[in-house]
């Protein structure tokens, strides 16, 4: 009976990002409480201590597994699908732009523009008619439900203001 080949070592580099962020934030946080009385520091010091201890234990475990050869650290192959990564980065930029322009353009217009661009991006520019229809339907439904019916505090832009003026008869 032939034995199964051992699993290839797993790249552990991505697993270190969250502990790295947590470590950096804990250190930053501790620098901001040096002026506070001890009683107000105690809880944060305790939790950050536990966090640092956990990260230390994780580092020890990782080092042990690296030595045992079950895990490796390498940069190559870190991003399996470059095309998808590019789409995510562009989507992130679109989200930032959406947030940036929301107060000026208002909910309806900025949502319409965001949706049409995001759908075109994810569908690789295919079927622009469907993208247009969905973006239009979603932003109009959003306006009717949230702004017109529930009067939610959504940012108002030229479209919302024009409709308000028409409703008020000005």
């Amino acid at each position, binding site marked *: 009976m032939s034995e199964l080949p051992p699993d290839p070592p797993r790249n552990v580099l991505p697993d270190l*990002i969250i502990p790295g962020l947590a470590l950096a934030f*804990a250190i930053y946080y501790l620098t901001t409480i040096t002026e506070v009385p001890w009683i107000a520091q105690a*809880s944060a010091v305790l939790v950050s201590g536990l*966090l640092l201890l956990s990260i230390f234990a*994780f580092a020890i475990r990782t080092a042990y597994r690296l030595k045992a050869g079950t895990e490796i650290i390498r940069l190559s192959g870190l991003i399996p699908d470059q095309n*998808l990564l590019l*789409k995510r980065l562009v989507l992130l930029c679109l989200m930032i732009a959406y947030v940036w322009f929301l107060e000026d353009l208002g909910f309806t217009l900025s949502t319409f523009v965001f949706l049409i661009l995001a759908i075109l991006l994810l569908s690789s520019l295919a079927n622009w008619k469907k993208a247009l229809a969905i973006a239009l339907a979603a932003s109009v439904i959003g306006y009717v439900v949230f702004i017109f019916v529930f009067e939610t505090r959504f940012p108002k832009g030229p479209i919302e203001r024009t409709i308000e003026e028409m409703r008020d008869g000005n």
Partner: protein
Amino acid sequence: MEIDLSVLPSLFVEALAYWWVIIPATVLGIVVGAIPGFSAANTIIILLPLTLSMSAEAGMIFMVAIYTASRLGAGIPAILVNIPGTAGAAATPLDGYPMSISGRGQQALAISFTASVFGGLLTTLMALILIPWLSQVAFHLHSVEMIVVMLFGISLIATISADDTMKGLIAGLFGLMIGYIGADVVYEAPRGTFGFLELYDKVPLIPALVGLFAISEAFVVIERRVVLSESDDGIKVAPGWSATLEGIRDTLVRWKHVVWTGMLGLVIGVIPGAGAAIASFVAYQQSRIFSKTPELYGTGHVEGLIAPESANNGVTSGTLIPLLIIGVPGGATAAIMAVVLEYHGVQFGPDLFESNPLVGYGPFVAMAITYVLLGLLILPLTRYFSNVLVVPTIYIAPIIIAFTLVGSFVPRAYVFDMGVAIVFGIIGYIARKTGYHVAAILIGVILGPLLENFFLRALRISQGDLMTLFSSNIGNVLWVLLIASLFAAPLKRRLAGR
């Protein structure tokens, strides 16, 4: 406190006369609950002009119906697209979403609705009977006991991350540190705010929830053609009754599970500040500890879905008990209800149940009616809701991002909060891709401010003596239970292995 329960039948009849308030509030509550960022509390605030124009009785029944229905509605996006509608549903996707992506979305929704309706109905009726005794729970829990209750919550962090406890701890403690951001409540010194004034008032919870669950999930889901996993992509999600009936049956045969997790939620709901998020995670953890198949949790296990849904609906009635009896609201929504009732001149306390039984008992009676209505209204719709799973992700991901991002703007009307949601979205995406549980981070963010407040209060009362943490008998019993719950699961596994 003696309460006359003989008035209840007539109260049910009186409350039914408010059907014109209950039905629209139930529909509104389901919609509101299903949209992340639109909590029942915010909706009640938005509708305050309407509520205040009603009588105290009608206003109370209206608010309670919205609250109850929103709790149930929050499970819909949690199960279908891995985005809890509210923090109280944050434990629901742990088993609900794996069921959905394996083609059992309709069944999962039916389980969630049945557990919510039966758990909620049962705990509401229990609350009516147990009001005098449950109200005593709140009197016995002070800062020290609350610290241990919070630590119970933190212990969940390790246990919900079945794959890697160490990663679970790091994620949870990272979340706790994030929850500590903001100005100190006593000395008002800003801590960890990166200089942003908007963070002085703590990290806003809704943007954190939107980012960790919605944004990060949208980034992940675009890898697939539809929400269903690639292996189950071919499964036909056709409207039919069989999966709904199967879900109802799956829940009803586990009625004991619905009962005890619902009761756990009811008791936790009585504790001011604990809330549905803690209750649902505590119920999930306890359910897993006492399960014969703990290894199935997190893979789409029926009991893992029943526990949080029954518990978070149990909280709904529990949270009103301290409000009505001692005037201390158990949560944000109860606090808003208190404001409305005080506006109508309602005096809280045991006398309320004699002086105005419809306001005293009315919330629970209205809740019971709402749960019956919810069952009749929503169960037939499960077969249509689950069609979301076959909508192409190129359409659903941008819509999720747009609507949840704006949802994170609503509570405080700060554009800054949308930025917070994006930052949490990036953290959540990295966490998901590298095996850190986003729910663990969220528990930390929720518990951080609570733990800090109770810790600070306990230390100030004891003049800085850390031994105060072991100064209470109830606290010490809770410590023992906490340690026992941490070691119960590994011990059970070891004994089973022998």
